[in-house]
Structure formats: C-alpha cells, structure tokens
C-alpha cells in the first residue's frame, strides 16, 4: 500500500482539490469513521448507561467497546482508567481542577516545559494562582532538546506535578518522557503528559512510560471533533474529587449530597459523546490497520523531503532539530522579510493549507526570539508530490512579495 492508496479512504481528499498539510491542527477523517458515527445514530442511538431497554443497552455497549479499544490502543491497565472528554484541553483541565487544586499548596512547585501548548500551560497557571504553588519552566535548547541537567534541576524536592508534551506542536521534537517520569517519581511528583501530537503518530504505551495522566484528542487521530480521552492511573483517579458534577456520574443523590459513581463514570458528568466515541474507536481501528510501521516510515519520508527542499530555498529557516526523525511530521519555518500570515496566504492561493501564527505556544516562540512562524504538518496520506508542490510555492514567495530574485 502507498499513501495514494490510503487517500481513497478519505472523502475530503477526494472531493477537495487542496494540499492539506495542516494535520497537526486536525487530521482528515476516513470513510470508516464517518460511517461509524452514522451507524451509531441510525441503529444504536439512545442515552447510554441509563435505559434498560435494548436500544440503550446497545448504545452503552458501543460506548464501552470504544473504551476498550482506547485502552488497548494506549496500553492502559483497565477500562476504568479511560475517561471520555471533549478533547485534550478538557482532559488537562480536568486534572488541573480536580487533582491540581486538591493536591497542591503554597511552597509546592509545578514544572512545565517552555514548549507547552497553551492548553498544557494555562491550567497550571490557574492552579498556581489559586493554590500559591510556584510554576517553574524547563527551558529547551534551540533544537528542542531538554537536557538531563535541566530535568534534574527544575524537577526537585518541591515539585509535586510535572506537565509535559510528548511531542511539541511547534518543533515536533519528542521529549524524553522516561527520564522526566523517573526524576518526577524520584521526588514524589506526578506527571501529566499531553499526547495530542504523539498519539496519532507513534505507538504510545502509558504503562511503559509510567506517566500518571495522559490526554489526547480524537480529531487529530482522524476521529470526530468533540471526543477526547484522559488516561489516569486508577489509584490517583479514585481519590480525586469530581471535575464536573450532575447527571450520569452518581450512584445516589439525597437533598444534601451524593455518592459518586465508580470510575470512569465519576468523571463523565452529563451524556457522553457516544457517537464520537464510536467514531474514535473506528479511527483507532483504521489507524491500526494502516499500522505505525507505515505511518512512521511515510511521515519520515515526507519530513525528510520537506526539510531537504526548504534547506535549498534562500532566506528560509526551519525551526527545531536538524534531524527529520525528531520532527514527528511537523516542519515549522520562517522566511526572512515575509510575515507568516502572508506566507500562508500565498500558499493558500496555490491551494496549500498550512498554519501560521504562534501555534498556541507563545512562550516558546518568545523564548526562541520568533514572533510567529508557518507550520506544515504531515500525515501518512500526504504524498511526496504534495511536498514538492509545497516547496515550489515556498520558493516563489519572496519574489511574489516584491523582493528581487
């Protein structure tokens, strides 16, 4: 199978004459995912977990099967550790509001990396403000590397929580999660991992990594928008207070109080996005079918081609590592004298979709001394021809913006 074969599975890629290389923002969906959502609504739709009639049991079963698919996919120990959320942001906020506010206090420290997406930074700024715990930053080298020394110094005896992305959404670098977890656990801190950019692109085993929490989004993994997952170790989740309260998360309610439901339902207040869960399971099945061997091989080939091509264009600078293997399909770049919004506008006029701006990681860009950048991000269904068209367009930009040849 080649990328071109897989493209046939994606209606949007068939219908739209566009070079979609903004996959780090959201992926496209294969027909199997669209079908799964449709099948749920056409044949299984009822409110899951509550009704006793066959249809509701079918809805419940669909949802629980999806939970099992996610458990197997990220190698969690139990279905109880898989909480359905809307997206990564909601999962990280759940940990911040529930675990963070109840476990941190003045004198404690929270360690985050400078390259976090705002969604893995702002919740910890909130916890810091409300509890008095200090927020400390692990700063990376220009290529994205977090040195052993940084990890050892910033994570210290005062640290109670470490928040880190497995893959940076700007640099694409893979962070040394094992080292960070080892150091964090040595000092008694928990680790919250943002898996938004890693889970769709590499095998992730939460037990092997030994992270305490991990959040990811369905939509970056070809699933529907509005469904995401929070993984948490059972022992931690069990003693945490609920994040949202209300329906479907209780065993019994009196005038004065309530007994909360067991895991994972304690953290799934309100009707869950069951159709989204069915779609996410279909996306995981599809991804497994393609296989990470092909995904990683193809995405590396695309990244290599893009980095080689961009290196030949004068005035273009690629951010992050020089090694394509440490980019996870993400290539952020700047063009001297051309604002990234103009770069993406010219690319758009050539039918190429990229992201421009600060990529929701302003502290990183400020730290690297860059105001904003343009980002191309590849998925296994992209082709080398698409990369070549992208490079050709990039090479024309300065001329089209009025600079001489």
């Amino acid at each position, binding site marked *: 199978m080649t990328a071109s074969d897989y493209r046939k599975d994606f209606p949007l890629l068939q219908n739209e004459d566009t070079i979609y290389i903004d996959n780090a923002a959201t992926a496209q969906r294969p027909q199997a995912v669209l079908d799964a959502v449709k099948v749920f609504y056409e044949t299984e739709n009822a409110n899951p977990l509550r009704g006793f009639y066959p249809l509701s049991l079918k809805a419940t079963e669909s949802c629980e099967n999806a939970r099992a698919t996610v458990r197997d996919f990220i190698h969690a120990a139990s279905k109880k550790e898989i909480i359905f959320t809307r997206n990564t942001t909601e999962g990280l906020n759940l940990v911040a509001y529930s675990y963070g506010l109840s476990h941190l206090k003045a004198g404690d420290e929270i360690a985050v990396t400078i390259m976090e997406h705002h969604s893995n930074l702002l919740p910890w700024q909130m916890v810091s403000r409300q509890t008095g715990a200090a927020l400390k930053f692990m700063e990376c080298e220009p290529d994205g590397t977090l040195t052993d020394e940084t990890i050892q110094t910033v994570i210290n005896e005062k640290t109670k929580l470490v928040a880190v992305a497995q893959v940076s959404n700007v640099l694409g670098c893979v962070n040394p999660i094992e080292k960070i977890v080892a150091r964090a656990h040595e000092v008694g801190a928990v680790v919250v991992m943002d898996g938004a950019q890693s889970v769709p692109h590499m095998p992730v085993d939460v037990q092997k990594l030994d992270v305490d929490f991990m959040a990811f989004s369905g939509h970056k993994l070809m699933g529907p928008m509005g469904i995401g997952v929070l993984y948490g170790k059972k022992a931690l989740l069990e003693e945490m207070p609920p994040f949202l309260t209300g329906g479907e998360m209780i065993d019994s309610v009196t005038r004065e109080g309530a007994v909360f439901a067991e895991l994972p339902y304690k953290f799934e207040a309100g009707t869950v996005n069951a159709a989204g869960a069915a779609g996410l399971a279909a996306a995981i099945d599809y991804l497994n079918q393609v296989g990470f061997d092909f995904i990683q091989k193809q995405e590396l080939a695309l990244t290599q081609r893009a980095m080689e091509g961009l290196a030949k264009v004068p005035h273009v600078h690629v951010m992050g590592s020089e090694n394509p293997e440490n980019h996870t399909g993400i290539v952020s770049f700047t063009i001297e004298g051309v604002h990234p*919004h103009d770069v993406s*506008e010219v690319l758009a006029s050539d039918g190429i979709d990229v992201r421009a701006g600060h990529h929701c990681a302003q502290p990183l860009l400020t730290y690297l001394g860059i105001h904003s950048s343009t980002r191309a991000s590849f998925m296994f269904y992209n082709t080398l021809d698409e990369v070549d068209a992208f490079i050709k367009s990039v090479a024309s930009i300065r001329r*089209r913006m009025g600079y001489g040849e």
Partner: protein
Amino acid sequence: MESRSFYNEILTEHNLRPEYKHDLPDANIVLEGVNPNCGDDIFLKLKVENDVIEDGAFVGDGCAISQASADIMLGMIVGKTKEEALKLGDMFLRMIQGEATDEEIDQLEEASALKDIAHMPARVKCAVLGWHTLDEAFKKAKENSAS
C-alpha cells in the same frame, strides 16, 4: 502551477518600501492599534492642527496587508481635514464589506488595491487596522479635549 496571488505591486511596494513608516516626534495624537489574533501591532502618530492632519506616520510590526494598508492610508490623509479623513475611512470600510460604489472605490485611489480582501474574511482585520486606529485616535482625542 503558480496562481495569481492577492499581493499586487501596490501592496508589496508599500510593504517593502513604506513612505510613512517612521517616528514622528512632534505628533500630538498617538494611538496603538492591535490585532490580538495575528499580532499585527502599529502605533499611529498624527500631528493635527485646527482639525487638519499636517503630518502623520506609523511604526510597528505585522503582515504585509496591515503594514501596506497603513502606509497607503497615511499617504491619503496627510494634508486632509479630520472630516475628510474619516469620510475616506468610512468609504474604505464599506469597500472591504463589498458595499462601496465604483465611484467611491475610484476615490480611494491606491487603497482600492485592497478591494479583493472582501473575499478573504481572515485578513479583513489586517486591512482595516490602520483605518480603525485612525477612527479610534480621533475619538480618544475628542474625549481628552472634552474632559
């Protein structure tokens, strides 16, 4: 194949070689205009005497559209009365919304190079930043003189 991009010569010229992008030490009205979403950021500086814009300039950073549009605007409003400048601003905004007449678009001279931005909703804010800041600057100046 390379398609025709929105960036025509008028825009790229004003972006790369702006005439009014410099400091103006004797300005008596200064206002910052920002597009928080994209980070366009300009300081509009005007020297206004008896409701006539005697001189004007801007400094700042941003995309070609925001910078060129501000430069074109200053070329049009320096020497005009406040009233005339605001009228041009109103025409410009209506052109961007696709509501200006051909005659009005003619009156906008070089600023009409931005006409097609009506079809680019994501970039409208960049094009109007200068004009919007001009409007705000006069409002602020009026408030200050009233208090």
